[in-house]
């Protein structure tokens, strides 16, 4: 505390656009096609990051401030499986990491959050503290520097409409769309998924129909954490696993959810497209340094104009009389 290198002082990562890794910031030449393509990629990336948080909040009303920590933890677990337990093939490591993250999220609810369910303030502090403990614990345990990387699924790139796109990014977009479709089908046609949607719409009514709200909360935290892990294994190959990214993921996830409306899945997707394209456009026409400013301004504007977010319900904002 008495020297400049305090814990929490981030390294020179900002120049490196955290999810683009060590490559130089994108020099988009202002070509429309490139903006469109990278806009889509950025948007899907943001929605992958935020969906986990949005899901957990809408179903269990728990703001999971450990979301970013779970993201990094999933990446680290994958790395461990690949590099320390060399026997594991990549796909297996990925599936295992996602599953483990989901389980850890569920356990976090089952043993800690369940005791303070309903006390929003305590839930926020507890999830924040757990997230912090995970991230700083990882930092202390050795997660420093740029050496922790995950290999891309398919190396190389391809030219689409004149723009160079990595295969990894194409996989990201594809996986993102796939997971949206899967989630949609799950919550509309599967009994458990329908129960989750029921609780998300009206907890009391769902409970009266026999849906156990603790069970759905556990499931939602498992799925939400799993989604964080899913996003991690897709996105981290683009760069390296650093603790700072955990905080950034949390910031972006919260920003997207607040702008889209806490509790609305559709809002999350729409907001991620808005912010995604806004970021790409500022990058193309101003400079890559402004991406965080975009997030900050977007939140402030949302709070000033429509605080409940794009699809948020105003009545959610104030207490019941």
């Amino acid at each position: 505390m008495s020297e400049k290198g305090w814990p929490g002082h981030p390294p020179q990562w900002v120049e490196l656009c955290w999810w683009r890794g060590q490559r130089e910031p994108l020099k988009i030449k202002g070509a429309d096609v490139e903006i469109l393509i990278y806009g889509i990629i950025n948007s899907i990336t943001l929605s992958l990051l935020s969906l986990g948080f949005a899901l957990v909040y809408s179903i269990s009303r728990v703001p999971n401030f450990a979301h970013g920590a779970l993201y990094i933890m999933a990446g680290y677990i994958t790395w461990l499986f690949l590099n320390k337990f060399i026997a594991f093939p990549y796909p297996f490591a990925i599936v295992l990491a996602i599953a483990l993250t989901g389980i850890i999220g569920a356990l976090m609810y089952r043993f800690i959050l369940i005791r303070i369910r309903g006390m929003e303030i305590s839930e926020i502090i507890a999830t924040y503290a757990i997230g912090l403990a995970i991230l700083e614990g990882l930092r202390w345990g050795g997660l420093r520097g740029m050496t922790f990387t995950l290999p891309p699924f398919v190396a190389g790139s391809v030219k689409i409409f004149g723009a160079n796109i990595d295969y990894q990014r194409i996989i990201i977009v594809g996986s993102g769309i796939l997971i949206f479709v899967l989630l949609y089908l799950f919550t509309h046609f599967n009994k458990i998924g329908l129960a989750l949607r029921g609780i998300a719409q009206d907890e009391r009514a769902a409970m009266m129909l026999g849906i156990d709200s603790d069970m759905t909360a556990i499931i939602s935290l498992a799925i939400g954490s799993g989604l964080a892990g899913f996003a991690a294994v897709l996105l981290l190959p683009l760069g390296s696993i650093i603790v700072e990214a955990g905080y950034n993921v949390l910031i972006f996830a919260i920003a997207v959810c607040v702008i889209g409306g806490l509790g609305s899945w559709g809002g999350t997707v729409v907001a991620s497209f808005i912010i995604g394209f806004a970021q790409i456009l500022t990058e193309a026409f101003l400079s890559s340094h402004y991406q965080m400013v975009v997030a900050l301004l977007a939140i402030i504007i949302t709070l000033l104009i429509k605080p409940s977010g794009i699809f948020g319900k105003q009545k959610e904002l104030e207490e019941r009389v």
Partner: protein
Amino acid sequence: MDKQSMRKERIDRGLKVRTEGIYAISSSREILYLLGPRLLLIGGIILLPFILELAPYWKRVVNIMCVYALLALSFDFLANYVGLVCLGGSFFTGVGGYLTAIFNVNLGLPIYLSIPLATVGGAVLCTALLLPCLPLRGVYFAIITLMYPLLLTRVIEALDILGGTNGITGLDSFPNGYVEQYAIIIMMLVFLFGMRRFVNQDIGLVLRGVKDNDQSVRASGINVTHMKLLAVFVASFIGCFSGAYVAHLYMWAGISLFALDFSIIPIASVVIGGGGTLVGALIGSFILVPLSEILRAFGSFRIVIYCAVLTGFIVFKSEGIMVYLQRKYHQFERWVKV
């Protein structure tokens, strides 16, 4: 003792009852009962630097301890008296610190002007930035206060303003060691007792009403948003002062003023020291900060420990040290037959 037919009973001590109202000054025993703890606190803290003459390093720690105590005080006030949970105390320290750096270095104002100006200006700025989320539910306030320090850090680095990663150097230091030491100790005591008076004044009661039932306050014709505004102003006043002090202590203002330490240690101090008793915030930081120094060797692991302890206290709904001590001081328990 047959526990089945006994129950525990908690009664106010005789001494406490005898000190209610005018009877408090009836004899030295009663006066001592009431004033004792307060005198102990004030005297102890003021004498501390002298006691520590032998260990100059620890005198520095006392300064930092008081800084965190102030931040914990503002968190306790906001969370337990107004119902607003501020997860980003470092927002206040950062704003206060950078403002005093601008006043001192860029505008050339002397330290005894730049600190007050930074405190007031910082309070105004922080309140203005937090204004949009005040009419909303408590969750939004927590989220926004969490985000601001993280976002501002990244914005400062990205745009390389305000000194970027190097920060602003060359701030004036305090005239001498005693001023440095006692400025913060005196201010801490002033704010502590000031806040205690404040929350018991009529306006403080209105703020506490906002925490208990804000619909009822609205139905009484009071604009709750304005009340929250006032509360945030007071809390950020305290926080920005701490930030300005820290900046001059290290003669440097950088993004580490937005560090997580300034956010999480106050929260842990309040939870451990006893929320709702403003003194508990002080006690908590008096315990945590020296502990943190002792654990310095562990690096970031300290934060892991704080968070684990914090979660433990929250989950097991512990009442905190001060609340426990107050209960023991004012009441005694005994088993009685049912």
